[in-house]
């Protein structure tokens, strides 16, 4: 029998407790140890370390951007079902600004002229060998290959830094706007605040689209400055939203397990989050294949080389792993209703998918490290400590952002709808 629940919060605890906040220094220490260990095991090879750092950074950034998109799209569609999980997305979205600080480790060397990560930061990047690059580097600027001169207008350390800072400020402002307004509503219960967020969500979505497009060009695609794909940002976005949804799901489960917001998030919400995740698994596969097939079919060497790198040796194995693990296995695994309504199963699938999403970014970024030799780089001793460390820092950031703030919107006008949400 269907009962209508009153539109009010009934959980005893709706914030993180002191234990979580006390864990923050510990998490930061884990992060520092992880990063330090990783750097140590590279033999203080800063290039190798920067690349794995960038992989983890982009992995975490995509999660935050996925959550930011979740917030924007919720307001744009005036969604009621997800009100109880929206605050988690708001908190994760707010993490983009602190993540900007983490990007300084990449950005500052670029400003000082390092081309170890972003090869376009030094002349000769269009060469096919080290020797050729050295020859080009010796040429006067005006006789360098036209592609370097033309792309140099966009890919240079100054403009890159301006853009990078702008992205983080814009995302931070968006996250801050939604979080602040939503927190203000917790106090006042003013419906006007919801209307304001709804009205602004449309222009914000446009700005979000522009920033995610160019940031994915800048942070990941420009690692291979000769290559280009207009599909790339969509690919980045597909993975980002999928991982954002999973992160919201897993965080909600973790919070409920530790006795928070136990009443507000129900199987119905997990079921719907699982459905969206399922949809974006398929979307990711669709975009990934579309990008691949267009390039494969056109067979233009300027585009195919990027995939050729990723089809050989260890990278080829990784590519197949992605096809299976990022698409087919999770597709079949969480296709069923029963699977999506089982929290344990969904949690397992979510963790598996996050690992695959990490592999996805590894696959996007790491092959560009040895651009002339294309050797397989996976080394668990370097990669895993770095990943563990970065994730620990990210959790610490989340705990800091969440602090003693309510983990559900307390007085959202659609709270009742979310609490009574039921799907068949």
């Amino acid at each position: 029998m269907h009962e209508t629940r009153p539109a009010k919060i009934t959980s005893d605890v709706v914030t993180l407790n002191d234990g979580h906040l006390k864990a923050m220094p510990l998490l930061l220490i884990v992060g520092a140890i992880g990063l330090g260990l990783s750097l140590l095991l590279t033999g203080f090879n800063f290039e190798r370390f920067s690349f794995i750092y960038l992989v983890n950074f982009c992995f975490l950034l995509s999660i935050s951007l996925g959550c930011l998109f979740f917030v924007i799209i919720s307001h744009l569609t005036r969604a009621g079902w997800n009100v109880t999980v929206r605050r988690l997305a708001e908190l994760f979205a707010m993490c983009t600004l602190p993540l900007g600080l983490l990007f300084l480790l990449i950005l500052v060397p670029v400003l000082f002229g390092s081309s170890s990560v972003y090869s376009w930061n030094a002349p000769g990047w269009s060469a096919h060998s080290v020797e050729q690059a050295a020859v080009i580097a010796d040429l006067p600027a005006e006789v360098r290959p036209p592609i370097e001169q033309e792309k140099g207008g966009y890919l240079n350390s100054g403009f890159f830094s301006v853009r990078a800072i702008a992205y983080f400020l814009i995302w931070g402002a968006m996250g801050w706007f939604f979080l602040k307004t939503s927190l203000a509503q917790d106090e006042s219960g003013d419906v006007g605040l919801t209307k304001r967020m709804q009205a602004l969500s449309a222009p914000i979505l446009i700005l979000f689209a522009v920033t995610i497009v160019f940031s994915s060009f800048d942070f990941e695609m420009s690692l291979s400055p000769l290559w280009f794909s207009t599909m790339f940002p969509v690919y980045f976005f597909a993975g980002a939203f999928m991982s954002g949804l999973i992160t919201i799901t897993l965080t909600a489960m973790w919070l409920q397990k530790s006795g928070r917001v136990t009443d507000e998030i129900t199987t119905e919400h997990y079921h719907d989050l699982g459905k969206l995740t399922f949809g974006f698994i398929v979307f990711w596969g669709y975009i990934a294949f579309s990008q691949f097939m267009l390039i494969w079919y056109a067979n233009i060497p300027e585009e195919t080389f990027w995939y050729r790198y990723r089809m050989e040796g260890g990278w080829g194995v990784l590519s197949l792993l992605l096809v299976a693990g990022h698409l087919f296995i999770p597709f079949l695994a969480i296709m069923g209703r029963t699977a999506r309504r089982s929290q344990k199963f969904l949690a397992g699938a979510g963790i598996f998918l996050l690992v695959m999403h990490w592999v996805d970014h590894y696959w996007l970024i790491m092959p560009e490290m040895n651009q002339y030799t294309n050797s397989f780089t996976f080394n668990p001793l370097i990669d895993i400590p770095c990943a563990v460390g970065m994730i620990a820092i990210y959790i610490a950031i989340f705990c800091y952002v969440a602090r003693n703030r309510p983990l559900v919107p307390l007085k959202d006008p659609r709270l009742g709808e979310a609490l009574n949400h039921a799907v068949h």
Partner: protein
Amino acid sequence: MADKHDNDSKLVGLLAQFDDPDSLVSACNEARLAGYKSMDAYSPFPVHGIDPAIGIQRSLLPFLVFVVGFGACFVGLGMQYYTNAAEWSPIFPGYAFKISGKPIFSLPANIPVTFEVIVLSSAFATFLGMWGLNKLPMFSNPLHRISRFKRATNDKFFLMIETKDEKFNRSETESQLNQWGAVAIEECRQDLTDNQLPSWVRLVGLLGVFLLMLPPVMIFRNMGMTNRQPRLHVVPDMDWQHKEKTQVLSPVMENGEYLFADERAMRQPVDGAIPRGRLEIDSEMYRGLKKDYRPKSAASSIKTNAQFVSASLEDKKEAPAAEAEDVSMWLTKFPEGITVDQDFVERGQQRFNIYCSACHGYDANGNGLVNQKAMALGANGQAQWTAAKSLHDATVKDDSKNPLGRIFDTITNGRNTMGPYGSQIPVEDRWAIVAYVKALQQTGIKPLTAVVDEDAGGEDDKKSDADGGSDAEDKTS
């Protein structure tokens, strides 16, 4: 229709009306708990919780769609494989048609079609499965004869308990429904005459089937007879396309001059163009030349590919200069990639017997059937024929004068009056023939006629003279 007497109609259930969804759901729950199974609820909009209330199981449909979609994946792939790459099928074999050097079957290109086949099949499975599971189409439902029921699409809620339910009892069920809050209860009766089709339906159906058979019958009839009428052109611009075919004159321009100076509609390939897959950069394999050989003049008829493009322009202008042949340019061993073994030589024998033996003879003595006949005609002055060469000749056999590469070149481009076979015999097969010819020469096989003569009493000398005769022919050409 017929009057509603008890004899003509059958009770199929009791229909109870409720005024709001909540009382409908609670009544459904009560009915389910009371043990009723054959019942259905009707409401103007989907009511939350009604499915578990009337005990509806999860639909089979998603599983059905999954199975169909999964199967469609293989059907889609298989269909493309069959139409593109399958030549092995004993009945209706496919035809592997190579286009622009692309692979016959390549998975990425087939994914979009497979995807679409999955989507289409799943959509059909969903739609038809929904109809099937709902037992549609249902042309008549006794509920529609109850005027009260019309408000089920408007503002009222109904629960029908069917008589086929084991627990159904006319009076007891009615009192239960009343107890559960029914506002009104009505009998739902099925008019038994409903089951009988009006007589004209059958007639119209038969007529329809007959009419449907007409087109195929007419088509089959026309397929089996001749017709004086011109062919029917259904899509004229497919039948008469605005295009120039091969080997026709180029379109005439207004001032009476042809569009192209060579007056052809079909353009020639650009000079130096190399067909896909025919780069043939390996001179040893494709031309029997040593790797480091470079012709002395660009006008030479023998070219390596490296020079082919640059030389091709001059190539057309003058005939190949009579450059003195440098025997050292020919390959003296088999090229890399050719393994000479039993199978290879046997392949060479088979090819030799097909292509070469007609003139040169099975034993390579230059006495093939064509040669014999032509020589006979030539003796009468009815034909001009230069005798085919015996491959057991000293000059032919001599590796220093006629190395392997030169034999290969002879097969490919012909020599003297012998025509070129390069366009007919694939490269590996030409090398196989070379191998077989060398094998023949090394065994020093005696002329077949000599063998026959030996058996008959031995007249070797006579045959040796014949060999000498064909030697002389070499000098003439």
